[in-house]
């Protein structure tokens, strides 16, 4: 277990999520894949906070917590995003009876 292996695992998580977001046509799967990408980013932030010495570590030891605080804000934003995203999915399902992205064309023209 080292910084590099941790970063590679996080990158794998992110890229699997990106593949899912690009390759699937179901809205719910796309939202799930976006959550996977969020988790990859969080892992990267926490790993960097754990292993890499920040600029001002000599003056202020609290700067080693910056990555964790960032990850916490990302979790907050992800929660808000997913609540809205699923709200949009429900609204779309109500009006078109489908959750397929390739058939979502209400905003065209």
């Amino acid at each position: 277990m080292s910084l590099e292996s941790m970063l590679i695992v996080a990158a794998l998580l992110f890229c699997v999520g990106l593949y899912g977001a690009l390759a699937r046509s179901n809205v719910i799967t796309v939202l799930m894949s976006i959550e996977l990408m969020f988790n990859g980013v969080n892992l990267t932030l926490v790993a960097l906070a754990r292993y890499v010495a920040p600029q001002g570590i000599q003056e202020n030891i609290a700067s080693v917590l910056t990555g964790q605080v960032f990850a916490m804000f990302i979790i907050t934003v992800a929660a808000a995003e997913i609540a809205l995203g699923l709200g949009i999915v429900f609204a779309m399902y109500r009006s078109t009876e489908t959750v397929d992205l390739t058939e979502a064309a209400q905003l065209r023209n």
Partner: protein
Amino acid sequence: MFLQDLFQNVVFWMLAAVAIGGAVGVVVIRDLFRSALLLALVFIAVAGFFVLMSAEFLAVVQVLIYVGAISILFIFAVMLTTDVRRGNLPNRLPVLALAMPALLLAVMVVTAVSTDWRLITGPEQERVNLVQTQSVNGVSDATLEPAGVSSPEEGRQVRGAGIADLLISDFVLPFEAASVLLLAALIGALALARGREGT
């Protein structure tokens, strides 16, 4: 020390296998309900990673918000909307959708391996561990001594470092912005759920 390292490595590779395997399952499996359950498994594995990297508070937040709220929300969404027969269809450009993440992954792996990281050195490591793990439950005098914190000023610094203190000092503006964002999301979700006939 050797046993501890070995244990950490074994746990790390098990968690990595669960996280990556689960993530691939989420994307590949056709049954949406199963992929929602696998997503919860990936979230739990990521919480394990957080514990491994001495971010216990984040691990608890991860379990509460991701496993407790977001996965359940996804399961609700799957139950309420999907026509199960069609399941998880692929998109129109499968080759391009596979090539782009693969390229990005290659770039990120090369960057992670070839960058010369300025790692935390030995004497700093003890204090960093103290700050990161003890930021949840406070620091006692007994733990300060073996970590090499001698002067009272240093002790005060280590004691004063915590996620909660950072949130209301250095990061108070993003903290307030996050509360506004949550309020906006709440109102937006309500407006979406009410639908057109409600207005």
